[in-house]
């Protein structure tokens, strides 16, 4: 088991190098010109300045040379310097990743808890009004566009009711809490700075709900259908024939089987949201990876694009590993080797 995990972890860097190579090639193939981000517009007409800047950023080298440089730097843990922020990409990411993670973790908690609840209740009272309401809510969550639900909730709760603060991770004048996790809520709690904790939590609330609602939709529908499938199995009849009450049949026998496919989807949803929470981050001015990805793609900021790609790929590879482990844990018929 431990050997299996080690082997999987050791393959991750190799896969990442492959992913980075592909990302590098793809970004070179686009027709756009990153110079726009590097050279001030009024100096564009000065060939000397353009050449100097090209040389400074290594853009004058031929493609294979740049590729070798880039990969060599990557191997040393250097993702290069962003054309737009002019800072090391790793610094940018280290700053933004915790913001995204905090948002995504919160959204996953909301989505999993609410989604499982709705899925369970829907399956238990299938084809009743309760089921209909639950399925409707879930369907809305996975079909209403985030920019719409996000703006509506922001308007109602922040602008009209003023129950929640505006956008961002904290109020404008609040100093971010010091801490190792980069999750403002956790860092503030660890420092016992309760006013900041409450503030961070209240800022997190709406975006987490909006993003979590879409996760809720996925989870609820999957839990419901998976549960209904389990409930039709022979072992359910056996459980009832033993004299098990219905809640025990549902929670003790159907659910553990129904969760096996849900685990996989949860893992991939989590990985997807690391770079896929763009809209939520944009609407709530959340300084995360998603908005970084958008701005770097817009200005053809190769190093930043590469960095974001590596982060996204890492998320998928890790999620894949964790999912496989969880799958084997939940399903004794699977043996990892």
């Amino acid at each position, binding site marked *: 088991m431990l050997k299996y995990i080690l082997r999987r972890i050791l393959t991750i860097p190799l896969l990442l190098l492959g992913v980075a190579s592909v990302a590098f090639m793809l970004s070179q193939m686009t027709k756009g010109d990153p110079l726009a981000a590097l050279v001030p517009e009024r100096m564009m007409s000065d060939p000397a300045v353009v050449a100097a800047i090209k040389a400074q950023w290594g853009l004058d080298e031929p493609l294979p040379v740049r590729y070798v440089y880039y990969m060599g730097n990557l191997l040393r843990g250097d993702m290069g310097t962003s054309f737009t922020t002019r800072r090391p990409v790793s610094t940018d990411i280290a700053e933004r990743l915790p913001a995204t993670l905090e948002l995504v973790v919160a959204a996953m908690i909301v989505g999993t808890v609410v989604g499982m609840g709705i899925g369970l209740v829907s399956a238990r009272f299938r084809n009743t009004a309760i089921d209909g309401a639950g399925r409707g809510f879930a369907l809305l969550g996975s079909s209403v566009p985030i920019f719409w639900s996000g703006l509506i909730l922001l308007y109602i709760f922040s602008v009209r009711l003023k129950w929640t603060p505006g956008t961002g991770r904290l109020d404008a004048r609040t100093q971010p809490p010091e801490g190792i996790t980069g999750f403002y809520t956790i860092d503030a709690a660890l420092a016992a700075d309760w006013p900041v904790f409450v503030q961070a939590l209240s800022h997190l609330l709406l975006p987490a709900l909006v993003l979590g609602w879409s996760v809720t939709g996925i989870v609820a529908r999957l839990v419901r259908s998976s549960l209904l499938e389990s409930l039709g199995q022979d*072992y359910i009849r056996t459980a009832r024939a*033993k004299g098990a009450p219905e809640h025990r049949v549902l929670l003790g026998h159907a659910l553990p089987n129904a969760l096996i496919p849900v685990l996989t989807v949860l893992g991939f949803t989590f990985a997807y949201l690391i770079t896929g929470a763009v809209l939520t981050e944009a609407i709530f001015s959340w300084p995360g990876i998603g908005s970084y990805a958008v701005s770097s793609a817009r200005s053809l900021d190769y190093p930043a694009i590469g960095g974001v790609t590596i982060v996204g790929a890492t998320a998928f590879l890790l999620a894949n590993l964790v999912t496989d482990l969880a799958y084997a844990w939940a399903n004794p018929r699977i043996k990892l080797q």
Partner: protein
Amino acid sequence: MTAPLLEVTGLTTTFGTGGKRASAVRGLDFTLEPGKVLGIVGESGSGKSVAMMSMLQLLAPSAKVTGSAIYKGRDLITMGPRDIRKIRGKEIGCIFQDPLSAFNPVKTIGHQIVEAILLHDSKISKRAATEHATSLLADVAIPQPGERLGQYPHEFSGGMRQRAMIAMALANGPNLLIADEPTTALDVTVQAQILDLLRKLTEERGIATILITHDLGVVAGMADEIMVMYAGRVVERGSAEAIFYDTRHPYTRGLIAAMPKLDGPGEILRAIEGTPPSIWTRPPGCSFAPRCSFAIEACRTTEPGLRRVGETETACMRAEELDKGMPA
């Protein structure tokens, strides 16, 4: 004559929605005395399982059950959910056809047997329940029962799984055991072992048994009484001996002819030609008529009822003519 343990009268089960309903079991009557073995035989779809599941209220809500099944003086059919739960697994144990799908794949065998014990005994400690489960596995001749408890169903062989299923069904000392095709999914060599085990345990403990099968050979050595079902009804019933040696019903004859013979290995089985009607397309008159080589015109219009002819009760209008000597 002792008081019956179970007395079933007019048991009828219909499926369907709204106006479109069809009956899978039609007016089943039988009584079972304590410690006796009743064999129910019939081809697939004859309503054997539905009848049993009806008694235990284990069918989906789309099934409507009428009639009565009086167990120890109380009607199982009309009993509330709490009461029927106390009967299931405590008074009446069940064994199902496919022990692989009948066990929950993600729980250990031990967990599932212990659960069966705890469900009906709130005072017993988990440790005592585990000890009890171990001894149950030993009773059904599973080697190393202590270790086996910690294994999952897929780690058991088919025969071992069915043994474990028997152990679970007997966990709370039931007075009635319903074994629904307990050997159908097993290898022939294992079948005999499982039947022997069932016979031994139920005899020792005086447990009445309803043994369901589509193979007359399975009930031959075990049943005190045999009921032959076809298209939701009993078409013949009698003592095991009478069914084998004095049958009057063409369908029973067909089943006997289809029995695998232990002698004469090369013998071709004579299955009854055709297939039973579905519950939605049952013909009028005798349901067996389309497949019966003795059918006459009257068979297609009038449905014969059960009546005593010779040693058995038979639902065939030509029962008198179909004496022992006649070929099937």
